[in-house]
């Protein structure tokens, strides 16, 4: 599970960068410079952060 969480975090982070750069336009309103790209980037990074936290919970020593 930890590997999946880290993999997902990386994918989401990279996808966020691509949205930020305007290379990906799916689910956005219009052209590359539109602020919705920033919204998508921030949401994807937030999800990536949650995946990192998920990985952290998977790696803690179990009782």
């Amino acid at each position, binding site marked *: 599970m930890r590997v999946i969480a880290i993999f997902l975090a990386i994918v989401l982070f990279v996808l966020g960068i691509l949205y930020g750069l305007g290379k990906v336009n799916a689910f*956005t309103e219009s052209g590359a410079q539109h602020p919705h790209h*920033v*919204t998508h980037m921030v*949401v994807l990074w*937030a*999800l990536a952060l949650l995946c990192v*936290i998920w990985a*952290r*919970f998977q790696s803690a*020593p179990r009782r």
Partner: protein
Amino acid sequence: MVLALLQGVSELFPISSLGHTILIPAALQWKNIDRSNPSFLAFVVVLHIGTALALVVFYRKEWAAIVRALFASIVRGKTSDDRDERIGWRLVIGTIPVGILGVIFEVPVRKLFGSPAPAALFLMANGLLMFLGEFLRRRQHASGAAYKPIEALGYPASVAIGFAQSFALLPGISRSGISMVAGLLCDLDHENAARYSFLLATPVILAAGLLEIPKLFAPGAHLVLIQAILGGIAAGIAAYLSVAFLTRYFRSNDLRPFGWYCVVVGAIFFLLARKGVIT
């Protein structure tokens, strides 16, 4: 100022702020409102931030405890039975659906349904949902089954409530109303369903406001900056008073009066829209 007060009150009352900000300006024939105008967008951003800050201030002790507990849990690398931590993780999990669905569907939904007739129809549906929620809650607890505290909610229930909140993207469907109905169906009582709904709404409203901050710096936005700041303060005060009233109200009352309001007002506006009186 009227729009600011309307936003502050209707964002937290289960009557849909988005629906009202479409229907009321249409009814009052405010022709000078251009929803794509940078100055209007900047105004709306500040109203949202004002509303969210009011919620943060109202629940400040609770938020401080939740954030502390969440950080402690992350540092520890495991969850515990701490009440604030359990509520915190449920809020995090519950916010994910609206975060994802919001960025995907906000724009197409606004384009499809951002006019008075659909907003009025959804407002009626919002009222009917509240009646349905109350009916199902009474049936669920007819045998005397106990209500749960928020921290006893399961993760699937948290996701379900968060998913329900996503329907508030539809103008006329109330964020607090639908998440309260979902909370009631997940065995929360009215007081806890309202509290959970307001806590769940806070990061969403705040994030929606903060993410739109660049619009404050768009050309032309500065023209209304003073009005926007005054509007934000008015919306914040209205929101604070609303949440203070609603948390008291839901200690001993239910959603039905709001259901009646939504059905009646929605029906009137729908008829007006059909007859072309409001557009």
